């Protein structure tokens, strides 16, 4: 019951924020949910949102894990994805022939580079105890120049059918490929969290590093792992972004996406100081940001004012997602649930470790 309450209130608010945005869209035009089939693929607002948010969703997942164990954020994600995608393009174009096999090889190479960047960040954070925001600032600052050099000082062009199909749609498949790739990634990540102790360990490290160490969890190792997984996330996000874009623009690809990824984690209800987290919340947060961007466009907000509008919305979101309001809402839902005798169904989260409730255990240790 205690578990249900904490997850329920954690997800209830990001979901309600999303619901408010969707309501605004429905008021603007009732055809918001309408979906048609164009060129054999589903088309409409919902597919557009899922398509547009794919990179953000993947980076938000990695950001959640890093935030949980390191207690701070990785600023280098957008730039790291630019480097990994530059490597992808470089390997693919040097391979000469573009086939599914060379695409796979180039993608694996970009994953290796992503993991290397994660290792670099992880070494600074976990082994040398540099603040994550400062440590990741190095790649953030130098990374686009590195990608520019990998690009051979030009923005290389993919211009072939296979990568185009990865970035748009494969004939005969009714769902756009980036949406499928994102879904596969989310499922794999959920399996990873369900089958390993990763979630428990990183939450333990994030809540109290010393207590975790006393219990046999090596904080250095967990933080390293978080940054390495982040590296894979950046490689996947970079892969999707560059196949969507069709060419590699080292200057502007995924620019400023790290801020949205951090925001997604915050909207999702995970503390930016680390510890407990909800991947489901972050994913909802990522889609909420995408819906927000598109809502402002749908409302025909003047381009000069669009940033101000977005800021106002985000302030409202952050207030709603703040711990104080969340606690209030949690008490409210508990009150309602008690009245209804537990009949209310609360959405369950993916990837939640069913074996233990980490909070009760770790916070108990903390008090010792």
């Amino acid at each position, binding site marked *: 019951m205690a578990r249900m309450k904490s997850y329920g209130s954690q997800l209830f608010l990001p979901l309600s924020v999303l619901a408010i945005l969707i309501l605004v869209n429905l008021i603007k035009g009732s055809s918001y949910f309408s979906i048609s089939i164009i060129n054999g693929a589903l088309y409409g607002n919902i597919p557009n949102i899922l398509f547009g948010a794919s990179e953000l969703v993947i980076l938000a997942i990695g950001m959640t894990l890093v935030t949980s164990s390191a207690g701070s954020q990785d600023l280098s994600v957008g730039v790291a994805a630019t480097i990994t995608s530059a490597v992808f393009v470089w390997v693919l174009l040097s391979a000469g022939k573009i086939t599914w096999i060379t695409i796979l090889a180039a993608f694996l190479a970009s994953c290796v580079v992503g993991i290397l960047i994660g*290792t670099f960040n992880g070494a600074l954070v976990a082994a040398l105890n540099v603040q994550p925001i400062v440590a990741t600032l190095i790649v953030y600052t130098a990374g686009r*120049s590195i990608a520019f*050099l990998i690009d051979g000082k030009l*923005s290389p062009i993919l211009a072939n059918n296979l990568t185009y199909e990865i970035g748009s749609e494969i004939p005969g498949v009714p769902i756009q490929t980036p949406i499928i790739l994102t879904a596969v990634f989310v499922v794999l990540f959920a399996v990873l969290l369900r089958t390993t102790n990763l979630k428990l360990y990183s939450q333990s490290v994030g809540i109290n590093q010393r207590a975790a160490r006393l219990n046999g969890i090596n904080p250095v190792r967990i933080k390293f792992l978080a940054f390495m997984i982040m590296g894979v996330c950046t490689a996947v996000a970079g892969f999707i972004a560059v196949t969507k874009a*069709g*060419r590699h623009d080292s200057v502007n690809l995924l620019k400023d996406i790290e801020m949205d990824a951090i925001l997604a984690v915050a909207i999702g209800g995970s503390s930016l100081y680390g510890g407990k987290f909800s991947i489901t919340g972050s994913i909802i947060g990522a889609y909420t940001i995408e819906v927000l961007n598109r809502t402002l*466009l*749908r409302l025909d907000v003047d*381009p000069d004012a669009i940033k101000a509008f977005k800021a106002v919305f985000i302030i409202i979101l952050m207030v709603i997602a703040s711990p104080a309001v969340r606690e209030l809402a949690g008490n409210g839902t508990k009150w309602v649930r008690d009245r209804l005798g537990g009949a209310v169904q609360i959405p369950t989260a993916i990837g939640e470790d069913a074996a233990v409730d980490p909070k009760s255990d770790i916070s108990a240790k903390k008090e010792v």
Partner: protein
Amino acid sequence: MTFRSMSDRVESSTRSRGTGWIRLPKTVYLVAALLLAMAGIASAGGSSEKAAATSSTPSSLIKVGIVNLPPAESGYRQANVDDMNNVFSQANGYDAKQTNTGDNSEQIAAAEGYIRDGVNYLLISAANATGWDNVLQSAKAAGVTVFLFDRLIQTDPSNFQAAVVSDMRAEGDRALNWLLSQNLPVYNVILIRGQLGSAAEVGRSAPFLKAAADNKINIVADGTGGDSWSPAEARKVVEAAITAGKDFNVIYAENDGLAQGAVQALDAAGISHGKGGKVIIMGCDFNRFGLRNVQAGYWNFTNQCRPRQAAEISSWIKAHQSGAAFPSGIIYQKEIYADTSNVTDAMIQDQGINADPGKGVITK
């Protein structure tokens, strides 16, 4: 969680610590050091000084100091930096050095260095439009002729000889005039702006906004690619217009990347475009991929923003040697446009910027 399972973990983790985990960080440090070194190289590349001349410089060469932005800034800048290096070469009679940095104070320091070195000419594309008064005055005092290129500086016109820049407003006018010459029954335009407030955005938007105010065109959606001129944002602007059921037959994007993103939205929605299509596609900047798209009829138009100012400045210097006076004030470059009827391979080769996908290759 029971105490027992925790203690189990203590053991297993101690074991793994003994067998190799401790060793891993060393390899990790190596990788880290390697990456750090890479980062060092890259950041050094951000403010590098390229010496075009060797140490044994004949005294007959004209000494030129070039203060420019880093090539990594954009495809435009890469073409611009290459152009400077190509034109101000020893073969053309110059002893030129170029400093590339996006930091205004580093740029000013580099300019001061060139003045101390006794260059004949100082060429500047400033990171910031302000803060240059002192260094420009000391150049004047030292008898160094200053030319500005691509970017203007807010200073007294007497502090520099001449500036050669793109006329962004003229670019906007050229695009609008081309569009109006298409004789469409109605012009329902989606306007996709660049970074709001930038010289390029202001100049390229103004004629269209004025034409809309004069009822010559309708702007049915007014969006922006944001500060990073993001194709993905441009795509969202067009997607919002499509799903809201807006009727449009022109997309005017203020650079080629934005046009590309906009076209992706049309393709996904099955709306025809380009030559003979429903929607006219207009880009800007003369990226070679954009020019190839125009050539293939996938787009209709792209507008030049010329990054090559070196030849013009060089011609002034050479003319001055044979007795002609320097031009003065702000001089706008001659720029052209490309549409499906006038685009040629030579134009793409000589005037384009960035990588060339090759003839007949469409960049979707």
